[in-house]
């Protein structure tokens, strides 16, 4: 071993084997000796590599750090973010932490805390898996979250700061999800002035998701500038992209957008035309809305005599549905072909009325209020179709007065409702919503209540909470199993006022079995109520931690 054999030569010799060629040093042992020396020498003599381009420093985040206990809680919530597994399994008496993450984030954001840096990747991973967490997670992640997400393609969603599509400012808001409260525009790309060269370049060259994010961000600051941006390249976009861009105009729609939308009615793509028409119809002053109103007026009128002599004096609504769907109607977004099982005239009528500004009707019906109009009898069995169309219009135009008239009395029989009560309720002010829901539950119990409760604001009002708990108690005493109500139970855990925990504690005791009840139901109910109470206590603790109180007020 007087002369050193290069490492590469040793490797070649080892690969070939001594049978094929005599290794350096003359023997296998000598080869191994040399390789050992060389290996240790190479390891001991390692040199640093050249540093790659360092990331730019993250922007400062001036929000307050989380109190210690709250930071600890976040670790637990994120560790359990996958929930309790299969939905079929029994849930036991302990709180479901995964369900509490959204409200914890909302409460932390309300107080303006910043996420601990070490938790940021877990937070982003959680929000990647659960879209319902994204708006709040994005806000909580803050500037460092954006900085980090730019370096990891898996967290790209953070850069799409589109509160419009996530928080639901559109007509469908709140129908399927518990309202989140206001969400700030967390993810506007840095330095996005509308006339900026960089903005134009990103718009012309960016990926689709980046462009949607850019459009939304620009629209948020200056709607007209956003529109100008979109018009730059509109005719060159692909049909599905045009549809998405059009859809992103929904937030902050204004009369200034009308000319653009009107021109989109002549688009090559049918879906783009339909979306443009829908957007125009939610602008009550638009020309399209006026044309629709004109058509609808010719179809729906009032007969002041009430028809037959027997009921003379009582007015009624008469309907003459359209006989054809002409080219002009189709241009305005009316779909000529009805879905299977529906008459085409009724189908056209519903579409006309849905797109007609509701303000058309009081004038058409002799200055009657919406409540009076909806109370009028409708001739020839058109009531169902006409009221359903008004419901759609009330939801689309977010008209509380019409929604109130159409949703009816909460105690009315269920089959009577013309539209989806949950969607109509979402249009009403939150106090009225809660009150309606409380009375609905008192009248009908919980079996139909899930979606209605879903649109009620957090936390539930005292009256609503009481109604839900009373109804649960009634269900228990009637001898059914708690898992028939697991949806409502889950909502109650999340939405009841945490202060109710002590009032509810006695319910967690195992009750006597009713004679006709399902066997064993009593202890399952007790378990379900235990979970309810412990979840409420946990929520109270979470909030206390976020307030920075060292000893949580669990109020025992």
């Amino acid at each position, binding site marked *: 071993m007087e002369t050193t054999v290069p490492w590469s030569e040793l490797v070649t010799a*080892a690969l070939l084997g001594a049978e094929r060629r005599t290794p350096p040093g003359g023997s296998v042992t000598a080869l191994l000796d040399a390789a050992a020396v060389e290996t240790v020498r190479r390891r001991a003599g390692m040199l640093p590599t050249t540093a790659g381009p360092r990331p730019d420093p993250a922007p400062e985040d001036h929000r307050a750090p989380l109190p210690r206990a709250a930071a600890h809680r976040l670790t637990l919530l994120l560790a359990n973010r996958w929930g309790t597994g299969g939905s079929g399994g029994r849930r036991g008496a302990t709180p479901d932490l995964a369900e509490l993450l959204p409200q914890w984030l909302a409460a932390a954001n309300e107080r303006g805390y910043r996420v601990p840096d070490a938790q940021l990747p877990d937070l982003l991973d959680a929000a990647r898996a659960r879209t319902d967490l994204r708006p709040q997670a994005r806000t909580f992640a803050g500037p460092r979250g954006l900085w980090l997400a730019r370096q990891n393609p898996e967290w790209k969603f953070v850069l799409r700061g589109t509160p419009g599509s996530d928080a639901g400012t559109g007509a469908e808001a709140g129908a399927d999800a518990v309202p989140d409260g206001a969400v700030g525009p967390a993810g506007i790309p840095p330095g996005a002035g509308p006339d900026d060269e960089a903005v134009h370049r990103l718009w012309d060259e960016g990926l689709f998701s980046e462009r949607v994010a850019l459009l939304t961000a620009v629209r948020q600051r200056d709607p007209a500038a956003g529109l100008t941006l979109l018009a730059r390249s509109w005719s060159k976009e692909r049909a599905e992209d045009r549809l998405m861009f059009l859809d992103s105009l929904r937030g902050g729609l204004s009369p200034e957008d009308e000319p653009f939308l009107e021109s989109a009615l002549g688009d090559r793509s049918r879906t783009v035309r339909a979306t443009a028409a829908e957007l125009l119809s939610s602008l009550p002053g638009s020309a399209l809305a006026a044309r629709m109103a004109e058509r609808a007026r010719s179809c729906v009128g009032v007969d002041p005599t009430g028809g037959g002599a027997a009921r003379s004096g009582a007015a009624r609504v008469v309907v003459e549905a359209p006989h054809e769907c002409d080219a002009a109607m189709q241009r305005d977004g009316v779909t000529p072909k009805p879905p299977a099982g529906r008459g085409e005239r009724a189908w056209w009528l519903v579409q006309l009325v849905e797109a007609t500004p509701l303000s058309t009707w009081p004038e058409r019906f002799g200055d009657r209020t919406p409540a009076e109009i909806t109370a009028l009898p409708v001739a020839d069995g058109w009531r169902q179709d006409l009221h359903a169309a008004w419901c759609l219009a009330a939801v689309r135009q977010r008209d509380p007065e019409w929604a109130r008239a159409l949703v009816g009395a909460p105690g009315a029989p269920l089959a009577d409702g013309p539209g989806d009560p949950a969607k109509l309720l979402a249009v009403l002010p939150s106090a009225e919503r809660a009150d309606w829901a409380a009375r609905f539950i008192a009248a009908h119990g919980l079996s139909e209540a899930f979606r209605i409760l879903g649109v009620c604001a957090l936390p539930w009002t005292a009256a609503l909470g009481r109604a839900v708990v009373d109804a649960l108690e009634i269900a228990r005493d009637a001898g059914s199993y708690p898992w028939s109500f697991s949806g409502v139970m889950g909502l109650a855990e999340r939405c009841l006022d945490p202060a109710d925990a002590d009032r509810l504690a006695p319910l967690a005791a195992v009750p006597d079995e009713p004679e006709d009840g399902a066997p064993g139901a009593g202890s399952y109910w007790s378990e379900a109520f235990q979970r309810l109470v412990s979840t409420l206590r946990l929520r109270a603790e979470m909030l206390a931690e976020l307030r920075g109180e060292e000893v949580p007020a669990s109020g025992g």
Partner: protein
Amino acid sequence: MALAPDAASRKSGSKLAAPGPWSGAGAGAGAVWGLCKGSGKTAYRTVVDIEGEEGPGYKCSCPSRKFPCKHALGLLLLWSGGAEVVGAAPAVPDWAEEWLSGRRQRAEKRAAAGADGATGGGGKEPADPEAARRRAEKRHRSITAGAGELEQRLTDLLRGGLAGADQRGYAAWDETAARMVDAQARGLADRIRELGAIPASGPGWPERLLAECALLHLLAQGYLALDGPPEEDAVREGSAVRDGAASEPAGGVRPPLPEPLATTVRTRIGLTVDTAKLLADPEARQRDEWLVLAQRDTDEGKLTTRRIWLYGRRTRQPALLLSFGAAGRTPQQWLPVGASLDADLAFYPGSGRLRAALGEQHTPPVPGHEPVDAGGTVTDALAAYGAALCDDPWLDSWPVVLTNVVPVPVQPGPSWQLADADGDAALPVAPDCGQSALWRLLSLSGGAPLTVFGECGHQGFVPHTAWAPTAADGTAAPEAVLL
């Protein structure tokens, strides 16, 4: 949470960290206890001994085989969260007291026995020293035969060439490993098993395979160069041998290996030193303020290995505590990362005196400091690893603290680096390092330099702990974050 044996227990434990199912809970006298309502009629009785001299202990009447069980974890979480249900209680209930006092008495007895051993020349010494010597000699013969056999196999392998090794699969390696287990040379067996995975490890495998074969050869030759089983009175003076015995011509007459290299070889082969004896040896003990740098568990099939790295404030010396748990059980030893404890450590001989056993703790752990004084640049870290290789050429990595470094994701991939904040030098991160740890590190740094503890080795750097840069307002001291 680091106490949990696995992710499932961690999850169920944190679910139980709510006041709901608990009753009769309290804390006091260095213990936490409570009754946890489970699915059955009787509540489980759970006690955790926090201040036990032998680390935390758990007792629960539940049937779970996991250890600690979810009830104990939930209780601890609840307690550490400051929940009211686990308030300070004046008296320990009888059922908890019974177990607690039993446990502590046993611990005291053991401690007393250990102290006796220290003074009385080895309390655990086998009754018959002659029989022990015979056993050691028998084992030495067995290992010598095993090392000889291994040498033969390595020679055969290289005679045929490594080129076909990737087609041969694990079986041949596993068989050789089994032969080494029979020969009572665990250390050799473990290395051989790892060898089996190299041909499937991607481009450059022949190089890595040759390196590992050569180190194995070096170890086998090293053992053959020892003459006889370890004997405490037989520390021989030998001539300085450069880089181990391997550079000597095989088959020639060799001087015996010098200490401490001989001990390193014995340790690497799998001959261990008795911990109790070590702790009883005042020469091996070192009292210092030990900063807990990191703690990592690795699951090695039937065994969970826990590594705890320490750094002595006065001795400026790193230390590694190893503890083991059977499948599904967490190793008992646990120290809070970032804390500092005044304790005795007994260092095992050989291998650069890194591995140690925890002796007496003089005070409970107190909050530690950011180990800026222990740290250095990227170049310093490589030099430290290089220096450690002189004592133990089989070392894969060496614990180091890097100060003033920036984590750099190098796109695409990303492949990661830790780069000196001033200058161009960088350490590549080892390819098998978990991505989530690296993202956490990047998030902590926010592009700014920070202090990182990890292992620096020939594969690259593996970060374990980071001390986040101080907040802009300068109010909060940097806190240790386990990555």
